[in-house]
């Protein structure tokens, strides 16, 4: 008899609503086989728990609510997952900053290895994941009793809605008291989230300054309803905020359309965007490596071409 498969997805949310990455993770969970439950651990997170119950394919939502979970600190969220972990063969987290922060703690305390950034579920114990900035794809098999997995959201479609899971309230863990949240600076923006955007306009070092970056790329992003991204070189130079970085060590994205302006295309950058459906490269260097993976390459000065593109789209 095959071992019983029961999958728990640890939801990412802002208490009121679910983050999109949770939906991709549910799709991966359904592919593991067995019943899929979702854990919503938060404070006043009824909204997120209700939303999780609507996801197609989810059988049950576990809702833990308490002040200890307000700031989503790794110590508390991991403890909450561990409180129910024994009921599950698989614990899945989105491979976001939050999921990556929490999942390894859970794995270590269960004394199991972790599969990071799974891009394909081959079987209940076998998975694909990229290594070396996506320059190789490893097929890995876990022999541990519990599989702890972070799911690369670009590898899986978002799960649909229309589910009607029951919501079960569970006791929230006590505050670990280990670390304390002081403050956060979250950029307010009407733009779509980088990892969930359908279209991304991304700038590189050639932008020259943060003023130019905004002046040239913002109108194009506005026109397309796109998120803004950047290469590491542009972020290092201070042209764009840190969390806009697309690449091996930044955000991994796969939009319908990725427009790379003035980005040469280092392998670390390509690692973060090469699964985009359509890639456009605008660069005046005909030898730029970005052209080797672009569907449409425009060899031009971006400072002329991008405004012209904005004009052309306006008509």
């Amino acid at each position, binding site marked *: 008899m095959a071992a019983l498969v029961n999958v728990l997805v640890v939801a990412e949310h802002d208490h009121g609503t679910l983050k999109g990455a949770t939906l991709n993770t549910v799709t991966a969970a359904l592919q593991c086989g067995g019943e899929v439950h979702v854990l919503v651990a938060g404070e006043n997170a009824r909204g997120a728990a209700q939303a999780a119950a609507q996801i197609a394919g989810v059988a049950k939502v576990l809702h833990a609510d308490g002040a200890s979970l307000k700031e989503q600190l790794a110590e508390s969220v991991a403890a909450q997952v561990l409180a129910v972990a024994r009921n599950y063969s698989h614990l899945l987290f989105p491979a976001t900053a939050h999921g990556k922060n929490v999942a390894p703690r859970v*794995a270590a305390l269960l004394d199991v290895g972790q599969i990071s950034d799974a891009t394909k579920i081959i079987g209940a114990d076998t998975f694909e994941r990229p290594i070396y900035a996506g320059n190789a794809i490893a097929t890995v098999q876990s022999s541990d009793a519990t599989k702890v997995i972070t799911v690369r959201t670009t590898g899986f479609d978002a799960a649909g809605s229309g589910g009607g899971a029951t919501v079960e309230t569970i006791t929230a863990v006590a505050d670990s008291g280990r670390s304390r949240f002081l403050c956060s600076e979250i950029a307010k923006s009407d733009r779509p989230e980088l990892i969930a955007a359908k279209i991304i306009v991304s700038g590189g070092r050639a932008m020259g300054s943060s003023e130019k970056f905004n002046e040239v790329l913002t109108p194009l992003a506005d026109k397309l309803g796109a998120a803004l991204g950047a290469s590491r070189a542009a*972020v290092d130079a201070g042209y764009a905020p*840190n969390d806009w970085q697309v690449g091996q060590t930044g955000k991994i994205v796969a939009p319908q359309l990725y427009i790379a302006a003035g980005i040469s295309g280092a392998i670390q950058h390509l690692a973060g965007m090469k699964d985009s459906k359509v890639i456009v490269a605008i660069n005046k260097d005909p030898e730029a490596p970005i052209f080797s993976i672009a569907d449409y390459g425009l060899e031009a000065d971006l400072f002329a071409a991008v405004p012209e593109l904005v004009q052309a789209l306006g008509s």
Partner: protein
Amino acid sequence: MKILVPVKRVVDYNVKVRVKADGTGVDIANVKMSMNPFDEIAVEEAVRLKEKGAATEVIAVSCGVTQCQETLRTAMAIGADRGILVECADELQPLAVAKLLKALVDKEQPGLVILGKQAIDDDCNQTGQMLAALADLPQATFASKVEVADGKLKVTREIDGGLETLSMAMPAVVTTDLRLNEPRYVTLPNIMKAKKKLLAIVKPADLGVDVAPRIKTLKVAEPPKRGAGVKVADVAALVDKLKNEAKVI
């Protein structure tokens, strides 16, 4: 206060690795090896904390093959005071490394462990968090600013959408993000000095740790190739392609 800085020897970030023809892994014979860039940032941060008077000793530790001694010498050239090699020829996965580091934390009693958020070879992003969990220490991952004041640690972290700042008691575990600092260039005199610094070698068995891998690699393959498309003549041609061929706008 002691600071423990784990460093990993990895394929240099400029090397484009090739998958072996038999699918057993990537070919790392005769390729340039370097310190994992995130760990270099960790060493730099530890050395700066010592220079500011917030730490008294910086201990670099590496787990892996004999050649990791070179990585430790690099850490000592940046400014670490001594090195520890946990020598092991077998594959070490993050859980095993975290257990080895936990044993060293018990022995050395550092006030801070600072290491890279991920290694650029296996891209796991696990070891720091696992160590924090095993040693029952608070953690601050993806740090872009680290301050020590009144025996407490204040860390600004890079999260999706922006930054957050946490405060925690020490000892604690911090993992570094790219923007924490820019590591200094090592100078020849410091390379020479590093050669004279103490480098201790221990084995996993000495630390009582079972390092057997938990995850088996069945196969390593090339990723699907994405071919180059076409060059378009001008903006009008680009818009036409996007609207009528790709149909994405």
